[in-house]
């Protein structure tokens, strides 16, 4: 489990370090394109249709060459395995030709077949052929002779023995040969396209290198890696499909699903995940993003496409954080089955801890990809903001010295779910830092901190018992209640301030409509120790955050149209 997280984090860390080194100008940008630039170039290539064109022609060459090489190799390999004269005849030739790098045969093939498609496909076919041939022959030779006896005793003819015993028994080896061959096919096609091609991914890498278009060169490498990865997955899927007995080997009982059962269980599964990501909490990230966007629009910058990406990216990261939180709280034992807080999918056995962690990684990966693209558009500032957000997210619960466990939860949430998101969204639109925007983000920052504080106030006893030191459990209930009131009060104080300073349009004053709710919440929190009632306070604080944020956004939008 830990290893899985590490194997996800190591490439991310590499990318982040790489980006950082380029942005700090430690790596020379002429030789090392930053990951965000590469991604930006990829998006541009995809938009222009060039990427599709290159990939499809390369894939076409790979597939044709693969089939042309693999099919005869399987037939001949079977013969080699079954017949010792054929083996004696072919083995020395295969052994002699096999070690020659197939790319080295390319000149000969070009002499014979010219520079067209034929020579490229043949080169691929040749490199696939020997790998599949030798693996197939070895697979047939390794078959336990008892299977041939059984087949003969059951009346199988020679031909039937080939089909019902030799071929299926050798299939795992044949598949191994195909997998190796596919890897070679990709290597060879890229090399082949360096020379005398006018399209294709190898061609793109080579020509961009010749004109020092280093971003395209890197983009080509990334595409090659992704193609290789997808081909591997494709072959694994095919293997599952044609060698079902291998996949079935581990399971003891066979269960038969009808398609309708599967469909309804799919639906149920989707429902469980929807519950696991806790969509109702998304307002905490959606509100500041929309607020940042509204503020940017108010100040005259708005790109709907970038805004949408920002929104999706931040929701993905929020979902990932929720899942990671569930996972680590479960691992640390903070959330028992009777805990009121999290989605309980782990505690109730609806999802395994492993699945939850996997979901978190997937959500983070989506968020990271979008983030990388936004960096390529908006530059270094967004990158560094992103790096600090990731670190904060990681140290919030995952690390040994988790911020949430040493009383720093509220301040972290205040900074990152307030100013950082609002300013980040604004920066993506405007590509400039603006202190007024930081100020106008503070009210909802206070409220989001109040949500967390209400949570910790409710859990004060439980957290003390397991040694989770939140601000509430450190301060004690009396001071914690006062702090809750201060957080709510701060919100309205700063709203008044930004209106007075003219940072926000006067219309945002409508957010004061929520003030009575805030006052009643502060009173209610002070008057009870009942966790049920405090749970209600928590829920209504989150509601307050949403309502307040929506009203403030509405104020900006009205201000935009009624100046």
């Amino acid at each position, binding site marked *: 489990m830990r290893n899985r997280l590490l194997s996800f984090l190591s490439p991310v860390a590499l990318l982040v370090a790489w980006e950082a080194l380029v942005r700090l100008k430690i790596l020379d940008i002429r030789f090392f394109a930053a990951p965000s630039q590469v991604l930006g170039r990829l998006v541009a290539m995809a938009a222009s249709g060039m990427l599709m064109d290159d990939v499809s022609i390369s894939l076409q060459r790979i597939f044709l060459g693969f089939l042309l090489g693999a099919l005869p190799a399987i037939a001949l390999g079977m013969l080699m395995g079954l017949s010792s004269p054929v083996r004696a005849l072919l083995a020395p030739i295969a052994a002699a030709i096999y070690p020659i790098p197939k790319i080295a045969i390319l000149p000969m093939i070009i002499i014979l077949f010219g520079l067209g498609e034929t020579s490229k496909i043949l080169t691929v076919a040749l490199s696939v052929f020997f790998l599949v041939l030798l693996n197939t022959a070895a697979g047939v030779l390794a078959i336990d002779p008892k299977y041939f006896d*059984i087949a003969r005793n059951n009346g199988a*003819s020679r031909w039937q023995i080939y089909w019902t015993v030799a071929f299926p*028994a050798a299939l795992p080896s044949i598949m191994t040969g195909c997998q190796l061959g596919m890897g070679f096919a990709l290597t060879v096609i890229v090399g082949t396209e360096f020379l005398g091609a006018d399209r294709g991914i190898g061609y793109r890498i080579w020509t961009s290198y010749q004109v020092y278009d280093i971003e395209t060169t890197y983009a080509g490498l990334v595409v090659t890696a992704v193609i290789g990865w997808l081909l591997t997955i494709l072959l694994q899927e095919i293997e599952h499909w044609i060698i079902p007995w291998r996949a079935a080997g581990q399971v003891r009982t066979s269960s038969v699903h009808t398609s309708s059962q599967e469909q309804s269980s799919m639906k149920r599964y989707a429902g469980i995940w929807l519950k696991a990501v806790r969509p109702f909490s998304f307002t905490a990230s959606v509100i500041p993003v929309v607020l940042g966007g509204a503020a940017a629009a108010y100040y005259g910058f708005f790109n709907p496409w970038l805004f949408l990406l920002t929104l999706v990216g931040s929701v993905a990261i929020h979902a990932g954080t929720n899942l990671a939180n569930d996972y680590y709280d479960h691992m640390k034992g903070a959330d028992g089955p009777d805990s009121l807080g999290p989605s309980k999918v782990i505690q109730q056995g609806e999802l395994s801890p492993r699945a939850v962690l996997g979901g978190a990684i997937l959500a983070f990966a989506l968020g990271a990809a979008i983030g990388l693209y936004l960096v390529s558009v908006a530059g270094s500032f967004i990158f560094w903001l992103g790096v600090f957000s990731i670190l904060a997210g990681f140290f919030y619960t995952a690390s040994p010295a988790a911020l949430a466990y040493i009383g720093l939860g509220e301040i972290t949430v205040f900074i990152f779910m307030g100013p950082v998101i609002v300013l980040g969204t604004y920066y993506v639109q405007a590509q400039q830092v603006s202190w007024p925007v930081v100020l106008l983000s503070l009210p909802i920052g206070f409220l989001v901190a109040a949500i967390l504080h209400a949570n910790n106030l409710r859990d004060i006893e439980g957290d003390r018992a397991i040694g989770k030191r939140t601000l509430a459990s450190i301060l004690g209930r009396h001071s914690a209640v006062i702090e809750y009131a201060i957080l709510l009060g701060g919100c309205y104080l700063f709203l008044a301030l930004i209106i007075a300073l003219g940072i926000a349009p006067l219309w945002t004053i409508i957010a004061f409509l929520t003030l009575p709710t805030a006052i009643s919440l502060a009173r209610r929190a002070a008057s009870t120790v009942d966790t049920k009632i405090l749970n209600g306070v928590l829920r209504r604080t989150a509601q307050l955050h949403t309502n307040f944020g929506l009203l403030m956004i509405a104020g900006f939008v009205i201000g935009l149209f009624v100046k």
Partner: protein
Amino acid sequence: MGCDWANEMIGMAPAAAQAASPKIAVQHLEFAYPGARGGTIMALAGLNLAVPDGQFCCIVGPSGCGKSTLLRLLAGLEQPTRGNIAVRHDNPALPVNSMVFQGDSTFPWLTVRENVAYGLAQRHVPAALRVARVATFLDMVGLRSFSDAYPGQLSGGMRQRVSLARALANDPEILLMDEPFASLDEQNRLLLQLELLRIWETERKTVVFVTHSIDEALLLGDRVLLMSARPGRLLLDELVAFPRPRDPYTLKREAAFGDMAYRIWELLRREVNRARDIEMQGVA
């Protein structure tokens, strides 16, 4: 295989020949195979045997005495070095023999159903008949609910039952069984022995059953043969006259059973020791 050998005996009408001639006739059988150091190893030397139609014939002997080789010769999987094997094939529509091999002998790449149907499919038995026979024998060995499982999903005992069902589904004239229950636990072995007895008592097929267990031979067989250490010859050939249907626990309480088992064991023990000596010489 010299199937018609018995029928061609001088001057006999086919019906009379059928009544008189054995189902399996083995004469002066020798089998040698190349040894590790260039010499030849004699597995069988001058073996004579006649098995009448419908007899359940058990062969006991020390490890490495050539019991399995004899079965493989009877199945036609090996050819004799010298001597003669004649197996009478009465119904050309049915296979003359089916073997239950020693150890796991299911095809891992076929489902349980496909494994049992394998022989039928190779002989192009019509699909409807094939399905019915497979279902019958899967029920018999209690694996109907595992029809679509692969052998890798089953326990060793279940796989052995699949092999047994495959041989029975072929409906052969002769069943050749090479220590079919050796790898099973005590309880499963007992259940399958009873099942085999039940099937045999209704179908009365000719069976040649190789085992290392004297008890098993006496429980199942009409006749017990004891083979010597290599090269294999017959040391003992006796009819097992206990009445059928047999029950293992009542049978074992009878004095006659104990006496017979003891007598065979005394002979077998000598051969086991001799077989060990031969192996030691092989090592030295």
